[in-house]
């Protein structure tokens, strides 16, 4: 296809996913409320879309970046890696959520439909190459999640969390749009490449309008990532939402938000590196501090994991601060490993949930070592990986970030990060302590889970261990996204 026509071949996976969504919508309208048909279609659709992403990139575009829709949509290496991982992460999310949703009599068909819509939004956001497409992807991925958070209408906490999430997200999107309007005003175009070019050409010193644009854009992204000082929604929403939704919004959206961060900061404003680096340093240090120190006090495991995810987003920003391609790759690797760890962590919580027994408090994990040794072992791997202890994935991810920082002469930031990691160690150890050093409360039902979920959590846990020992394959994928 030549560029005079609207080239849409790179967008084939999104088109396929849209067709699947329509099919799910129709099926959901006509089947019984407790049928598993939507689940099966959703999972099959996710697998098909993932295969199609890889296929499109390799065969249709011969492994090179390709633009679609006159440059509004790009399918480059970064997009492929993040999209495939997003689809895999959502696949595992739905896999672990199935039993939980069934037990709580949540409107499941709608749940899978909203999840697929949100995934489509994430895919569009990952591939966006134009301010308008970015915003469209962002809204498409956020709006269904508001509904997913509040999906249990009878639950007061769920509705409260949904409302909080909705209002805070609206403010965030508003800030982002405001920043976009300044960017458009400065450069006269919505296309990221053109913006970058015009910023370099037209401005030797930083125009006040341009710095306003930068600040508002970074603020809007920071809302979505959940970094300090825009992190207020994270603990409340993670806690109030049903655990399956918490898993959904904790893992996959961070990948898409990272893509947005990269496209806007590195794609559209690379020459302003020195300016947004300062902003990111402040965000990173505050996030690591607030996330780690606040989590120490928590007794609710979902809030604890929420604060820990704030800290992790702080760590992730470090690679972008380093400013080198290896730093960007390190950030990409970190957000990928964060997604994998988070799916496993919340997955264990979901598998522990049975009829009427909600796992929310740290003490609900007591004695997991004897109640379900395998789940406890997976949780052990996940917890130590989040803390950054070898031989697990989180360690090697952190090492790469620190190495990139040292090469950019940020030794003080490395020392600060390591000290925050030690603080963070404390609450992760408390999880291990509850699981293995304490005995189970006697009146709890036995933990049982379906075979497919068990296989899923096993694969997830083993990935955390084995990719931690042999990270080369995944790291090379991350490296190729930024080192051409």
């Amino acid at each position, binding site marked *: 296809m030549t560029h005079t026509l609207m080239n849409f071949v790179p967008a084939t996976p999104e088109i396929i996913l849209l067709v699947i969504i329509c099919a799910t919508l129709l099926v959901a309208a006509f089947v019984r409320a407790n049928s598993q048909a939507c689940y099966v279609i959703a999972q099959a659709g996710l697998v098909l879309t993932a295969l199609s992403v890889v296929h499109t990139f390799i065969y249709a575009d011969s492994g090179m970046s390709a633009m679609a829709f006159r440059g509004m949509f790009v399918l480059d290496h970064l997009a492929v890696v993040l999209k495939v991982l997003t689809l895999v992460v959502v696949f595992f999310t739905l896999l672990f959520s199935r039993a939980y949703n069934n037990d709580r009599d949540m409107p499941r068909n709608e749940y899978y439909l909203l999840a697929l819509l949100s995934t489509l939004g994430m895919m569009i956001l990952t591939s966006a190459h134009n301010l308008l497409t970015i915003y469209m992807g962002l809204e498409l991925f956020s709006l269904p999640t508001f509904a997913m958070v509040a999906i249990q209408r009878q639950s007061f906490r769920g509705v409260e969390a949904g409302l909080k999430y909705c209002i805070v997200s609206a403010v965030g999107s508003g800030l982002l749009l405001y920043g976009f309007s300044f960017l458009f005003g400065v450069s006269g175009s919505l296309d990221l490449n053109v913006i970058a070019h015009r910023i370099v050409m037209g401005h030797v010193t930083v125009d006040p309008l341009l710095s306003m644009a930068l600040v508002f854009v970074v603020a809007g992204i920071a809302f979505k990532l959940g970094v300090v000082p825009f992190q207020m929604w994270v603990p409340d929403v993670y806690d109030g939402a049903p655990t399956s939704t918490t898993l959904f919004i904790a893992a996959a959206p961070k990948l898409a938000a990272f893509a947005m961060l990269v496209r806007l900061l590195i794609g559209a404003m690379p020459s302003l590196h020195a300016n947004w680096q300062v902003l990111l340093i402040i965000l990173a240090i505050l996030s690591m501090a607030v996330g780690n120190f606040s989590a120490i006090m928590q007794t609710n495991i979902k809030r604890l994991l929420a604060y820990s995810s704030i800290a992790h987003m702080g760590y992730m920003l470090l690679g972008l601060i380093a400013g080198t391609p290896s730093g960007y790759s390190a950030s990409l690797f970190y957000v990928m490993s964060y997604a994998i760890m988070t799916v496993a962590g919340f997955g264990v919580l979901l598998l522990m949930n049975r009829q009427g027994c909600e796992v929310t408090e740290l003490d609900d994990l007591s004695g997991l070592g004897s109640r379900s040794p395998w789940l406890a072992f997976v949780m052990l791997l996940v917890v130590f990986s989040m803390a950054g202890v*070898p031989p697990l994935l989180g360690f090697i991810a952190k090492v790469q970030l620190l190495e990139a920082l040292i090469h950019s002469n940020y*030794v003080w930031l490395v020392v600060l990060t390591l000290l925050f990691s030690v603080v963070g*160690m404390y609450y992760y150890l408390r999880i291990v302590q509850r699981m293995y050093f304490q005995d189970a409360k006697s009146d709890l039902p036995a933990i049982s889970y379906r075979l497919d979920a068990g296989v899923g959590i096993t694969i997830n846990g083993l990935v955390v261990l084995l990719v931690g020992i042999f990270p080369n394959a995944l790291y090379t994928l991350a490296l190729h996204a930024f080192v051409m």
Partner: protein
Amino acid sequence: MTHLPLLSILIWLPVLAAMPLYLMHKRMADNEARWFALIVALVCFGLSIFMYANFDTTTAKMQLVEYLPWVPSLGLHYYLGVDGISMPLVALSAFTTLIIVLASWTMVSHKVPQYLATFLVMQGTVIGVFTSLDGMLFYFFWEAMLIPMYLSIGVWGMANRTYAAIKFFLYTFFGSVLMLAVLLYLHSKTGTFNILDFYTIDFSLSEQIWIFFGFFLAFAVKIPMWPFHTWLPDAHTEAPTGGSVILAALMLKLGGYGFLRFSLPIVPDACHYLSWFMIILSLLAIVYIAFVALSQTDMKKLIAYSSIAHMGFVTLGCFLINVIIIHTGNVSDAHLSLEGAMVQMISHAFGSGAMFLGFGAVYVQMKTRNIHDFGGIAKTMPIFSAFFMLFAMSNVGLPGTSGFVGEFMVILSSFKASFWATFLAASSLVVGAAYTLWMVKRVFFGPVTNAGVEALQDIRGADVISFVLLAAMVLVLGFYPQLLLKVFQPTISHLLDLSLQSRLL
């Protein structure tokens, strides 16, 4: 040169063997697990004896080298090798694990397969630390070892185990994170993580001092040096017997090994500049901690503090070298000092490990650590008391036991450096004799004090075998230390050369 990948087998065989033990723990009988672990431990011990016997004692080069790419995109390599310093420590690790597995017949009775799995994994990771020649691989094993140790204290430990386990983990983790920063910094200066390549770079003095402190924190917490020692008494008192033995015998040596492998050769000028700082800290450990041990009523805490005091001799030996050279200019005197530090590490492992094992043999029957609850044990457990007396004498430093050799060598060389340092170190030997003999008197001698002591059964079976092995090591090293000394002479000479160079920018 092609050879059997002995080091990889010693690392991974225990780790892989731990997996069936853990996965099948519900279906395995306790004794099946013990025999399985014993066979693995014996295989590793046999291999380490083979390695010891075939070790080339004429060269300081790394032997049994294995070099494979591990993460090519980051420049990390799976680079293993042993020289005169690390080889005896690897053999020590295999020996200690054998002792712990033998001890599991009597000293652990719940969750036995998982207990053995945890200690096998620990053996693998500890050997990994001693044999790594790639900085990131070293750090990888160094931290990985914390997980099984934390679990062993927390699951099988005593009443206050949660506090002790978290304290142990956080303290040690805090110490080692700055080492990660230093290793990454060294990598950025040389472009490689190969530890042997770090020996060739020049730094300015202030850079060297920062690097020294980065390493110092990690190793000082591990050894432990005063004032970073407060985690050890808690960890020892709350750990199960196997945990205490491995903590005393192996984990403490990691710190000493770290000083020898990293601090002395990489930043020799900083070591020179900070010699008196380190010597004073070591003397504080030796003298002050000895007095603290004298005041203990908890038997395990007493042995723990005596452990810290004995490790003070190791750091003293390591850092006297520059002061000796200033005073006498004679390299062989400094050589004696480093050799003393090495021997003290090995002999302390046997002595302290044996004493903790002995304590475990009593604790499993009496369930108390308070010295006042004991008394007259020699009457009801004569064989055990004879062994414990030997180990106590080694702790005191009686000639003929291994405890004498290391301390004597260090004190002899410190005499060349400074009279007052020698006076303080040697006088602490008197305090050492005081607390050890007083403890032995209160616990073993005298009349039988209570019904608990009367009901004690003497050791038999697997425990006797462990004690015989440990006693043999203590006596052989005490009477013929040349067996050990000949192994590391060339390596120590080479290390001394590296440590006495000036590598200022």
